[in-house]
């Protein structure tokens, strides 16, 4: 398959994976936590490398999942001890991120990772990093990793759909009827962490946040049903990926940057034009209402 197609497929997988899981972050008002985790997984990746001495994707996923969960726990702990949530998030993630950066620079010779790459990703290289598994034709590593994580996420979400829903809407009731609220919380955080790492190589740590939040935020404005929101969000993720790619080739700029920009542009469009919750939609409704009420 051609170079271009692989980039679009991988970016779309990022859009779907992050878009769907991001919905739950938005509904739980945890968008900032996504920001935090997307940064601290850097530390997980570096530690995984230093310990295993390899760039194997599995070790990185494990490292990221552990550090991501640890981030979520530490934030929860500080918050519980009376530190404001935004302050806890800010302190924890900058600290972990800084350690990650320091480790990379100290071990710069042996780590095939640099901070730029980690932050911005380089999706253009994705089609050159192929692996062969069994009798399958050579496939990009990023594709295999993202597809596995996406499938894993979808299975977990189907298994725990009602738990994810009720703990997002009313954690007190959930706890009262015996649903393990904290387990579901950390399950979600674990999913966010591994999704972030899987997307990390392609779009970079910072731009993962755009894919985690913007598609879900757009979907939120268009529907009143959770399942529809999840599907719409995946759709917006893909749309941002594809349109971002063509914008990037058109103006010859960073692919991941353009994708993140397009997810923002799509959000702006929805924000203005959404029939029920958009700026224009609200105006139109008022207008219609006025003309109806003044009609003879």
């Amino acid at each position, binding site marked *: 398959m051609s170079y271009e197609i692989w980039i679009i497929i991988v970016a779309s997988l990022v859009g779907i994976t992050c878009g769907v899981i991001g919905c739950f972050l938005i509904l739980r008002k945890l968008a900032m936590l996504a920001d935090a985790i997307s940064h601290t997984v850097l530390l997980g990746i570096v530690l995984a490398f230093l310990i295993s001495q390899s760039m194997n994707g599995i070790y990185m996923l494990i490292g990221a999942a552990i550090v991501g969960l640890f981030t979520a726990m530490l934030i929860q702990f500080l918050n519980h001890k009376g530190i404001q949530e935004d302050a806890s998030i800010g302190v924890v993630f900058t600290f972990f991120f800084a350690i990650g950066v320091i480790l990379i620079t100290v071990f710069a010779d042996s780590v095939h990772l640099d901070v730029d790459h980690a932050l911005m990703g380089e999706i253009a290289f994705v089609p050159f990093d192929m692996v062969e598994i069994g009798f399958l034709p050579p496939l990009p590593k990023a594709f295999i990793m993202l597809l596995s994580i996406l499938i894993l996420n979808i299975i977990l979400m189907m298994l725990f759909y009602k738990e994810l829903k009720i703990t*997002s809407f009313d954690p007190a009731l959930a706890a*009262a*009827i015996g*649903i393990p609220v904290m387990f579901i919380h950390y399950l979600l955080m674990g999913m966010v962490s591994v999704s972030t790492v899987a997307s990390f190589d392609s779009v970079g740590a910072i731009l993962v946040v755009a894919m985690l939040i913007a598609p879900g935020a757009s979907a939120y404005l268009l529907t*009143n049903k959770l399942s529809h929101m999840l599907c719409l969000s995946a759709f917006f993720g893909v749309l941002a990926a594809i349109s971002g790619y063509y914008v990037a080739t058109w103006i010859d700029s960073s692919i991941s940057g353009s994708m993140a920009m397009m997810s923002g542009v799509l959000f702006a469009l929805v924000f203005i034009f959404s029939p029920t919750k958009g700026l224009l939609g609200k105006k139109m409704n008022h207008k219609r209402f006025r003309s109806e009420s003044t009609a003879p």
Partner: protein
Amino acid sequence: MTNPIEIRNLTVAYDKTAVLKDVQFSIPKGSLTGIVGPNGAGKSTLIKAILGLIPKVSGEIKIYGKPYKAKDRLVGYVPQRGSVDWDFPTSALDVVLMGRYGHIGWFKRPGKEDTILAKESLKKVGMDSYANRQISQLSGGQQQRVFLARALVQDAQVYFMDEPFVGVDAATEKAIIQLLTDLKDQGKTVIVVHHDLQTVEEYFDHCILLNKEVIASGVTEEVFTVEQLHQTYGGKLAFLDKGKVMVEQKR
């Protein structure tokens, strides 16, 4: 037979200061109990502690003679309406269905039977025509009724309701009280946090006066006296004619 609710020496603290001190009372089966006390008295905290939502410092909480276990499905809960985000993308029917989640078990979705129960329960609170309405498009009183319907499908033995009458019109309030009285007549035990002192004697057969400690608890006629109310509200009461009382608006 053991009482459905038995609380002994319960102390709860958020930080260092105790919010509930040495709370002790019991509630008999088939009663409708009002919990009355000023803002910040610890009424919501008491309910949350009983449900194990916040840890207790010391004391004993027994539901039908055993420590509270969610798995026993003995308890239904109506939180204060402001405790959830009503912009959540979900419908009234969906919210009521959440009351069934404790019965459904892992990895399963609500089935046909659950939906039928949820619809019946919406009908009981007069909300059947709003089943598919998104919850942000309901009025405050309608949202409160959805919460009530959700508690009803929990099919519990004991119900805790935190201020179910806030933002509800007089007709709905009467309808809800009728519903609670029906529950009581079925032998269920209902505990309601209530703010309107005018209606306490009319609505509740049992009563708990709470202000960090239990000032009094028991049968309403014995507990709901001017003197004990004074003690509960710390002199913030104004007395109207014929022994009726109300809380003085403090500005």
